[in-house]
């Protein structure tokens, strides 16, 4: 009997008008999203390679300087830049890829852009969202899933076929499970075909280059998408068992979709800003500058007061200023952490956010990318700073440099090896860690599935089929 119900449901869906229109749109959107994002990734990767080559040729130019002292001076003057490699799976989920800087200076907090950089770009990218695979699933598939199922029970009641079906000796649980399986298969199969079609394109064009890891991540994102679609499908089924008219079911479905897709996740960071405010970065930076100025004035005072200055006292002032600045930074980071955690937890009230967090975690482009970027930036700048600071001392102590009349003379150029210079490297999680970290969101989606199905079952047991 279960098989009959499933078969009937699949045939009913496949022969419906919405099936044809929905899948024409779905195929177009998924394939187009993958095609456009693949090209976009390729462009970004080419740009990255060009920037890396340019930096390398700059270092090679330095290497060509014959005079070791001139090389040393030029090295101290040169500012080095680190390049951020675009993440391969940003093809599927762009996440924060477009938000973080592509280049990192060897010193200083930020890079500066010229007026040409500012205006010489297509501003429409800034205005609209990125239409990647995850966006299509998150927004479009959730709506289509609801659209497929909103009349599964109440529609049959309106037509009178439910009465007929229940007149047979078939338990209600079998009817509900049959409807769920039939409906979900008729939405999942064409979806899978579209996804694997898109994947075939990515694979054939060679855009996916992370080997088995990339394939595993892709499959995990695909399975996650099925769980997410299933959550909305089950929700639609629940609403259908709750309402007695298709128009009511549709309105409730639309309301829930608006709230869960457009309102809750988008409002979460906004509400978090209200509840857990963080002082602006500029304010913190200004306060740090004020601490520096205060320390300078104090040291200036000491220099004027004592002929030779008091080295100990000045070091103490410097240490105290450094301590206050660190404390300020810690305060800022703590506040920001609280806000970020609150944004995430509030957004998780919607399955949409759980899906987005888990998918971007698997793709390596979610909030974790920002953390990895900041750590990599700090590491890169520290390594450069210590290289510059230690170089003079090392050269002097090893006897490869000497001071003559206040000028430093370097004897050889062996200390400069372009390959040994610190590079900007962002660590990426392995697939197991990504999955483990995203597991909470996956479990949330499973919980939503189970909850909606249980409620649908409860409502359907008491459903008045007449």
């Amino acid at each position, binding site marked *: 009997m279960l098989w009959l119900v499933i078969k009937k449901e699949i045939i009913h869906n496949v022969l419906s008008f*919405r099936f044809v229109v929905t899948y024409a749109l779905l195929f177009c959107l998924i394939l187009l999203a993958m095609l456009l994002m693949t090209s976009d990734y390729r462009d970004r990767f080419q740009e990255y390679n060009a920037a890396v080559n340019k930096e390398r040729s700059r270092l090679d130019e330095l290497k060509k300087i014959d005079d070791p002292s001139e090389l040393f001076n030029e090295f101290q003057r040169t500012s080095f830049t680190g390049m951020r490699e675009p993440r391969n799976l940003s093809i599927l989920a762009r*996440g924060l890829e477009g938000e973080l800087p592509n280049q990192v200076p060897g010193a200083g907090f930020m890079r500066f*852009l010229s007026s040409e950089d500012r205006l010489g770009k297509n*501003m429409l990218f800034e205005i*609209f969202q990125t239409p990647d695979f995850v966006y299509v699933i998150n927004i479009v598939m959730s709506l289509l899933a609801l659209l497929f199922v909103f009349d599964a029970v109440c529609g049959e009641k309106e037509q009178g076929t439910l009465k007929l079906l229940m007149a047979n000796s078939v338990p209600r649980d079998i009817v509900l499970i049959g409807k769920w399986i039939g409906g979900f298969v008729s939405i999942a199969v064409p979806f899978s075909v579209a996804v694997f079609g898109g994947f075939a394109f990515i694979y054939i064009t060679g855009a996916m280059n992370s080997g088995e890891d990339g394939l595993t991540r892709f499959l995990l994102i695909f399975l996650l998408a099925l769980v997410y679609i299933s959550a909305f499908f089950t929700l639609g089924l629940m609403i259908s068992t709750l309402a007695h008219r298709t128009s009511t079911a549709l309105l409730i479905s639309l309301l829930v979709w*608006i709230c869960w897709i457009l309102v809750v996740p988008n409002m979460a960071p906004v509400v978090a800003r209200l509840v857990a405010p963080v002082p*602006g970065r500029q304010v913190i930076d*200004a306060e740090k500058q004020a601490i520096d100025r205060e320390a300078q004035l104090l040291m200036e005072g000491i220099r004027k007061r004592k002929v030779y200055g008091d080295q100990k006292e000045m070091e103490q002032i410097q240490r105290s200023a450094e301590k206050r600045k660190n404390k300020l930074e810690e305060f800022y980071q703590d506040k920001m952490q609280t806000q970020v955690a609150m944004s995430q937890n509030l957004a998780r009230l919607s399955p949409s956010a759980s899906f987005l967090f888990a998918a*971007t975690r698997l793709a390596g482009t979610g909030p974790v990318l920002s953390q990895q970027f900041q750590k990599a930036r700090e590491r890169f700048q520290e390594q450069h700073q210590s290289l510059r600071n230690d170089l003079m001392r090392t050269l002097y102590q090893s006897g490869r440099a000497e001071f003559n009349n206040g000028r430093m003379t370097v004897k050889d150029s062996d200390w400069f090896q372009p390959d040994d210079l610190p590079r900007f490297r962002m660590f990426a999680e392995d697939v197991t860690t990504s999955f483990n970290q995203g597991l909470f969101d996956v479990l949330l989606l499973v919980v939503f599935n189970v909850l909606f199905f249980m409620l649908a079952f409860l409502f359907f047991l008491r459903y008045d089929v007449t």
Partner: protein
Amino acid sequence: MLLHIIRKELLDQLLNLRFAIACVVCLAVFLISSIVLTRDYRESMSTYNMNLVVHRNEVLQISEIWRLWQGLTVDRPLNAMNTLVKGVAPGLTESVKVQGGGRLDFAETYEQNPVKPLFPEVDFVFIVGIIMSLLALAFSYDAVSGERESGVFKLLMSYSVPRDTVLIGKWIGGYLALIAPFLVSFVVGLVVMALFPEVEPTLDNTLALIGLLLLALLYLAAVYSLGIFVSCRTEIASTSITVLLLVWVAFILAVPNMAPYITTQLLPVPSRESVDREKAEMQREGWRKMEQMMRDEQKRTGEENITWNKDNWSEEFRTEVEDAQKKLGEEVQKVEDSFTTRMQDQNRWAGIIARLSPLTSFNLAAFDLAAAGIEQERLFVEALKNYGQTWEEYSRQKRETFERYREERRKSGQGFDPQAMEQFNNLDLSDYPRMKFEYMSFRDRLGRVYVDILLLLLWNIVFFMFAYLSFLRYDIR
């Protein structure tokens, strides 16, 4: 009769579940959005005032002459309209380093809360463009097909009432029910904003606010007319909503978002970085050529002491070098111009493709009306460049005595003496020119948005005409 139909439609909608849903959603979203955006504005106001003082003090503390070459930092004045429309600017406040020669340095910042960029900003444009447009479809999908299904339509048409009156009545009644919660929520949002004394309304901004409201009403009317049109083309309400949702997905979610990427594929433009690299390479090559010219000249004249000091050059060599420099400058400019033209082409076509969706027209017009759009960005950069020239002129005047002294030393063959620089320090920059930047006037903003307004009007007329034509032939049985 028209009034009767309007009243009936209005009452139908008011008593429906969707009206309650619209009221709750609109009010909640507008309220939270206005509280948060206005608070953001208040915080930005204090940051802006703090930056203003810090940057002014930085200039006033300049006493050494060499620091005049380093330029100064200026701040972008706040735009009160950002409490409604975030726009394309990277933030509410921004500090830009302005240096001589028109060089501007914009700090490349990024959002510290990594969750925020994953979700779109919930401002007036998002609420109206996405949420309200979906509600407009929910209000209109069964206007005709729903009544046909319930049999009310047959009854209505049995009276001596022309079809155009029925359609207009339905349109007006349904539209009033749609905009009622929107208008109430909008006013509530404005009241919240008014509670913050930092938001000072100017005449231009008040007019822009009214303009934004009218624009939103026009956009919603277009989407509502589309709903009525599809409802007139279908016989079952569920088919109507299926078609409408698919159209909505395609034209509101897909077309505007995909248009820039599609245009990038159709009209590829090299990246800014690669153009800069090409220009730098050309300049390096040009300098190499000029160095070769210098060596040739040294060989030709047998004078080893010819340097880049033009005073020692022969007339012929001077012309040769100047020609080479001019040619190099022209070639570099050609690369820049070619990039600008191609980028403008790409932008134009992206705009045209994206405007297949009424959302793009609404978004771009709203951005421009709020003085937070692409044109305002261009004007800001333009104003910064102009200010850069003003600063350059001021700084040149301050350096005049020093430059004269340096020139005299150079002519007399004496090298530059850093010790002598001391006498030119102790500058007084209290009269330095302040940057005055004003956002576009309402008249200018209107001049920018009229095409999009006309497009929205066109969508309204087209959808309503199609709805009317379909309704005239509609089978009411």
